[in-house]
């Protein structure tokens, strides 16, 4: 398992100056997972995660204690940019009769279709709202969200609420109302 040890997480929580490798081991898995929520291909998610850590390496102005927030912000932006690129490609592919979409059998499955719908909605709404929803879904607290996205902690609740409304409105505009589970 690649998850960081409790000791390393504790060091990171102190905000002490950490070397690059420690920061990498503390955050890599979670950053890759945040990206993988958005882009469909786990291998591509890891590529983007590597790209982000590479940028962190080059950007030595980011201090160890602030690296977590910087990484989440960069990760969610990179993932949403990738999602928008995918969405644009798909739009043009529909114009070409000989072009076909991914032949991955999983994508024919209903659950996969639902994932694609959610991704298209995230690609369509405001990037900051999409970032809030994705990082919130990853379990970030209000405080962590505020730090990662450089927002006022006092307004996080309101911003999340607006993001949820925007997401639902866009989803229902595109796909109609979801059937509610029975019981």
């Amino acid at each position, binding site marked *: 398992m690649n998850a960081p040890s409790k000791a390393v997480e504790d060091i990171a929580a102190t905000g002490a100056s950490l070397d690059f490798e420690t920061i990498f081991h503390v955050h890599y898995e979670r950053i890759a997972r945040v990206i993988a929520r958005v882009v469909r291909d786990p291998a591509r998610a890891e590529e983007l995660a590597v790209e982000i850590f*590479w940028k962190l390496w080059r950007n030595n102005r980011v201090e160890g204690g602030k690296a977590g927030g910087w990484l989440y912000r960069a990760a969610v932006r990179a993932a949403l940019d990738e999602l928008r690129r995918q969405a644009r490609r798909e739009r043009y592919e529909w114009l070409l009769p000989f072009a076909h979409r991914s032949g991955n059998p999983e994508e024919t499955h209903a659950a996969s279709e639902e994932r694609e719908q959610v991704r298209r909605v995230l690609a369509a709404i405001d990037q900051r709202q999409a970032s809030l929803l994705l990082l919130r879904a990853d379990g970030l607290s209000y405080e962590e969200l505020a730090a990662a996205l450089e927002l006022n902690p006092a307004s996080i609740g309101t911003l999340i609420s607006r993001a949820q409304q925007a997401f639902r409105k866009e989803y229902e505009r595109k796909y109609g109302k979801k059937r509610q589970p029975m019981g």
Partner: protein
Amino acid sequence: MERNDSQWVEETIVVLDPASEWRPDASRGLARVYARKGGTRRRWALPAAMASVGGVILLMLSASQSCAWGACLIPGNASFLPATIATPHQASFKTSGSHSAPITIEIYSDYECPYCAKYFNETLPLLVAEYVKTGKVKLIHRDFPLPQHAWAKVAARYANAAGELGQYDAAVSQIFRTQDLWRDNGNIDAQLLQVLPPGLMQKVRDMVQHDAKLDDTIAQDVRMAAEDHINQTPSLVIESKGQRQTIPAPAFAVLKSYIEQLLGK
């Protein structure tokens, strides 16, 4: 009754959770970050790269002056590149391991760089024990004294003088081990006197003061660093099967994994 937005969104977005069995591979990821830092270069590119070394250096010198993230970077100072070397001098004492080893690792270091000291004290012994002494890796030390470090070049002169007299490993080890003691005052001499006999130490001193060949050795390494796009210390150049890869010196676990990959295990 219709669910509220919060609950509805949480239940909708949860479909994006990655498969539970999927685990991002941190070791591979870290190796890729390091590989990204370097880049491969074919042998035929060497003459062309030598011709354009000035341009390469200018690009390299855009980095910051600070030591951070486990490395010391070149500052913006184009005069760093040494003048033409009159008589290139290959210092054989800087090489250890079998000449027929399938992998050659060149380590570029600066004696005043704290990360280099840490690397020499902690990581290099593991590399030597597991791969150099077993004939799998040939190791070459290369000097890369950064201009922001006042004593790095003097330290390199001391180490190379000791090397010419057959005491290179002892001198390098002592210089790095005692870095904290001489970094402020440059008194490397006093530290080497702890491990080298007084008679030999006098010869080292004479060479440090008068032997211009010592500067040529350093200058040659710095020029090779330019060829290999080195812009920080400690850095490694790993050569295997005609491919050269420049990377910031990684942790031993990552280096080991890469060596094993090159050895085809």
